[in-house]
């Protein structure tokens, strides 16, 4: 039995169904990231776990105990909010101990707990300050301290890094990961940033319109997207999703990509997924990540199945660590990721290598994966 189990959870606001039957589970010590575009229901889902919003039907269990109808304070959870929600009228110490005060913990014990947490997070020198006197990163730390002190069964994070600037966000991301590694707590974390999701999670639930689109490990989500939405949403730069048709070349199937001025490219598929044969002569969506579309010298050496085709390069973007090249296939701009020192000029025709072992295919009608 998993530590956190969410079963058929539904949430309705009047006529609108916000959550349409969510099934998710997480092992003890796991790190679940709920990711999706704004309005997908991820924050609502977190709030229902916290007990800040009621649910219409379904069940939430933590450590075998159903917590559906418990008051938030009785659920043995802690929550870090997007704005940190530090009480502006209280000192840092007051903020950290407010929950204990509400539960009637004696002052001496509270002080002990404050000191312990202050040590872990290195905020001892800030204890007597008001939140308004803290920097963004310090506030973040205090917010985590306030939750840590309760030693809860479950930690909830609601987009905790979205108010920080880019550099601090990376630092705090590492901090949270370290905290998770050292304390071994179970965490549910909401974000719209797929990089945060990839770097932090042990499990990711990609959500859209109140439904979980895919639930799995970061690697599964990244390499094996179950539908067009997940493929498009996860990864940066995003996966190239190119309209194509399935043709035949000899005995094998081939992917045919239209080009603007020249004859189409035909990429032979040696080990096409079984479902693809049903699409002969029909349109499909051909998905290939930028790193699987590269200069022939930079192509993965041990990939079993690489096809090379001449492409007209429209734009070149040197990004330092890599160089990105944009070409046009199937009527869409397609991004290729090349070595930083690749010699490539815009306006030229350059051979690009397609790593077809990493390619995925989608049915344009249902947007589901063709396997």
């Amino acid at each position, binding site marked *: 039995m998993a530590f956190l189990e969410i*079963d*058929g959870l539904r949430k309705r606001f009047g006529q609108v169904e916000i959550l*349409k*039957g*969510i*099934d998710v589970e997480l092992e003890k010590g796991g790190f679940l990231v709920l990711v999706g575009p704004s309005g997908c229901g991820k924050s609502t889902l977190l709030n229902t776990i916290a007990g800040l919003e009621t649910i219409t*039907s*379904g*069940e939430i269990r933590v450590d075998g105990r*159903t917590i*559906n*109808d418990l*008051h938030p304070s009785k659920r043995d959870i802690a929550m870090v909010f997007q704005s940190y929600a530090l009480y502006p009228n209280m000192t840092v110490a007051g903020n950290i101990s407010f929950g204990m005060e509400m539960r009637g913990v004696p002052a001496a014990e509270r002080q002990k707990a404050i000191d312990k947490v202050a040590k872990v997070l290195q905020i001892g020198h800030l204890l007597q300050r008001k939140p308004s006197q803290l920097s963004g990163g310090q506030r973040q730390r205090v917010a985590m301290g306030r939750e840590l002190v309760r030693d809860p069964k479950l930690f909830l994070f609601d987009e905790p890094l979205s108010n920080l600037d880019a550099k601090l966000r990376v630092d705090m991301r590492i901090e949270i990961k370290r905290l998770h590694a050292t304390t071994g707590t179970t965490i549910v974390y909401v974000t719209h940033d797929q990089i945060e999701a990839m770097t932090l999670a042990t499990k990711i639930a990609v959500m859209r319109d109140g*439904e*979980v*689109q*895919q*639930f*799995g*490990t970061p690697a*599964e*989500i990244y390499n*094996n997207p*179950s*539908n067009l939405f997940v493929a498009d949403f996860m990864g940066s730069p995003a996966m190239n999703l190119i309209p194509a048709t399935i043709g035949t070349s000899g005995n094998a199937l081939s992917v045919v990509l239209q080009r603007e001025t020249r004859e189409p490219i035909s990429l032979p598929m040696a080990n096409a997924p079984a479902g693809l044969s049903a699409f002969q002569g029909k349109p499909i969506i051909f998905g290939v990540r930028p790193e699987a579309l590269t200069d022939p010298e930079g192509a993965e050496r041990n990939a079993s199945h690489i096809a090379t085709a001449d492409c007209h390069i429209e734009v070149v973007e040197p990004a330092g660590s890599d160089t990105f090249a944009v070409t046009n296939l199937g009527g869409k701009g397609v991004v290729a990721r090349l070595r930083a020192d690749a010699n490539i000029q815009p306006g030229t025709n350059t051979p690009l290598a397609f790593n077809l072992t990493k390619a995925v295919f989608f049915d344009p009608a249902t947007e589901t994966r063709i396997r």
Partner: protein
Amino acid sequence: MSTVATSQIKLTPEHARPRASVRSRLQDALPKIVLAPSFAITIVFVYGFILWTIYLSFTNSKTFPSYVLTGSRAYQRLWGWTFDTDPPSSWYTSITNMGIFGFLYIAICLALGLFLAILLDQKIRGEGVLRPIYLYPMALSFIVTGVAWKWFLDPGLGLEQTLHQWGWTSFHFDWIKNKDFVIYTVVIAGVWQASGFIMAMFLAGLRGIDGEIMKAAQIDGATTFQLYRRIVIPLLRPIFLSAFIVLAHLAIKSYDLVVALTSGGPGGSAWLPSNFMYEYTFKRNEMAVGSASAVIMLMTIVAIIVPYLYSELREKPR
């Protein structure tokens, strides 16, 4: 294993929820319990009383409330008196005054308020001193400042006499004693009281305009006048609306202005409907007629305020 959760509906029976304890149910209801007294008070003492007043306006109440319905007699009497009856109808005087006062009060306050706000927005040194000076009349009761205005407008004591002393002996200003002009003195005093506040509203609006729009217009070659006429004033439209609503409801509710300044004017010639209502209800023992006039005032306010409140409070799309 990656599982795909499509929209498959899991048919689990609705889990029977543990019965909430009395205490936790009380906790859930607490917010409503806290709000309830205020809401009840509003329902009874505002809406209940309004209905009561409407009911009274259909009775023959005189000195004391009577609950015998007599149809629209009070309304007929209210509108039946005319200028030609003897004495001439105070009600027609009141609503004519309301029209004159309402129109001039709102128009002048808006114009003057906008004008002062634009002047004050020209990076004025001493704005911090001027602004409170323009606004203080709003903080004082007109019963207080009416004393000064009455004195100031009195031909024997105030402005007229002062100018006579200064040598302008032909100056004549006796509106406050003249039944045809007394309402205009009410307009002067009313504008004096409220225009500073309207100025503050417009000033806040001006300060809220994005400075980059101004810069863009200046680069486009707009003169200061064009800038205000074509860019700034159109952007202030919401403020015009709010200011209009404020002024319209202040105008309809104006009561102590007339009492303090004119004590009703010669023969009630300065009355507004609010004064009419008070006089007929409490002094002339015509309770039903007074109630009818109150209902008409209320309807006027409803016609202005309800659409405004509705549009302000309508659930904004998320």
